């Protein structure tokens, strides 16, 4: 495995110098855009995401304004900046992006109190400025911050994080799970993205795309959930710091 496992087991440090359970540097701001109803900017290491919220407002299409059963509809639009990846590639609306949009839409439509806003749409615009792993997690965290900024009522925070298993085979014992992956690690290891309601352990989003032994899932999930808790503390601080300005 090209991810230097030999160095890892010696110094117990990852390629970028982190320990196994260390999050990357996280920087976040809210209310970054004046024009939007709510907005946020989030950096998780070199993954940089900008998110704006519009709504709840009457939807753009005239026919179907709200979601089903007199509830608000959540719409998510994810755009990639041309310079976000290593190669400048024109990304059309491919299936991976629509899957991410679908994930955010379903996660937030059960989390937000959509029944308070019948016949309306809440639009989330997410712009990805730089990609370096944990993309879905960054999108979820940024969206949560932006929704808080927009003042849309929700039952709880949704925070997300990635976790991987560094074991190469089923037998090896040094199967340290890793937290918060960057792009290189994502390409080499099997990982999952988990989104929880920060305070409790309840899992709202769980996406795993690579093959792994079923015994490993438990460890990965446990580390991921733990990471989510810390992520929540960080986001909490961001919101509180912003609130201090008004006190």
């Amino acid at each position: 495995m090209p991810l230097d496992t030999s160095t890892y087991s010696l110094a117990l440090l990852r390629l970028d110098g982190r320990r196994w359970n260390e999050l990357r540097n996280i920087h976040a701001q809210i209310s970054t855009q004046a024009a939007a109803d709510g907005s946020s900017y989030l950096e998780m290491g070199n993954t940089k995401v900008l998110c704006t919220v519009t709504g709840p407002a009457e939807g753009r299409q005239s026919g179907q304004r709200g979601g089903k059963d007199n509830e608000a509809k959540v719409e998510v639009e994810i755009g990639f900046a041309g310079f976000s990846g290593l190669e400048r590639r024109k990304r059309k609306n491919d299936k991976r992006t629509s899957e991410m949009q679908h994930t955010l839409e379903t996660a937030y439509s059960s989390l937000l109190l959509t029944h308070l806003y019948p016949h309306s749409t809440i639009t989330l615009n997410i712009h990805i400025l730089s990609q370096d792993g944990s993309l879905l997690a960054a999108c979820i965290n940024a969206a949560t911050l932006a929704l808080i900024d927009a003042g849309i009522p929700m039952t709880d925070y949704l925070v997300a994080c990635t976790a991987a298993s560094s074991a190469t085979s089923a037998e090896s014992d040094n199967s340290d799970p890793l937290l918060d992956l960057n792009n290189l690690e994502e390409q080499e290891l099997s990982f999952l993205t988990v989104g929880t309601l920060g305070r409790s352990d309840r899992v709202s989003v769980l996406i795993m795309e690579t093959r792994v032994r079923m015994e490993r899932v438990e460890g990965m999930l446990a580390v991921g959930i733990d990471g989510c808790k810390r992520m929540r503390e960080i986001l909490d601080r961001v919101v509180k710091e912003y609130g201090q300005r008004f006190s």
Partner: protein
Amino acid sequence: MPQEAQISVNERAFIQDALKEQLRLDGRAFDAFRPLELTFGDEYGVADVQLGKTRVIARISVDVTTPLPERKFDGVFQIITEFSPMASPAFEVGRPTNAEVVLSRILEKAIRRSNALDTESLCIIAGLKCFALRADVHVIDHDGGLIDASCIAVMAALQHFRRPDVLVEGEKATVLSIRERDPIPLSILHQPLCVTFSYFEEGELFLVDSNLAEEQVRDGEVIITMNRHGEVCQIAKYGGAPVEPYALFNLTSLALQKVKEMSKFIQERLDEDAKRRNAGGLLAELSAENDRPFDRPVG
């Protein structure tokens, strides 16, 4: 976007009440699949799966092309899903619903990304010629459980498919027709199968293989793809109501059990089909007697 007709409030309440009393509308146990039927076509690589009223047909076809420049040693493998209006009036041609996006992504992750098919074996001459394999998934009738049924159909079709043999002489490759040389089965590395769990009552209750009505009432779904060796190929829980993490572990072990059952079923059907194709065995093939219709005069 085209939408499924919504279920009435009466039906919704009734299904939930019934589940509270441990009853499913069709009388199944909570962890039971609907009756599964798998048949193969006359040609290689056609699998027809019926799961209750849901019906999916997968067909594998092969072509020779140049490999992608960044993957010189790999063949090409594509899975194409199509929801035709035949399956449900809610489907429209050319406007993919969310369900369609999810289905194609799950199949992509479950089968293609998990390397179920050894694409290197599809390479003929590195960088010049390779086989392009295409799996077309057609949803013929829709009554829920499309992902599970489609995954079974594609995997069964892949295992059933035989590609033509090739003769390579230097830079020249000749594809031999089925008559010249026996076609070759694909090299399948493992058999991922999907199990969709729908949950109700805030994640207290999990159902396997829900039908359309149950799918409309559920709080959320967890799609787990595993192979019978106990490897998880993919897990997808797209939002929905949150569930306790330990419930998810229980699901993986339940999924493993289901996947083992299904793998066995597919293998049985494949064996039956092989037996049918090779009715007389080698002896019949070598026999000098031709089955000419003597009793029917020509013309």
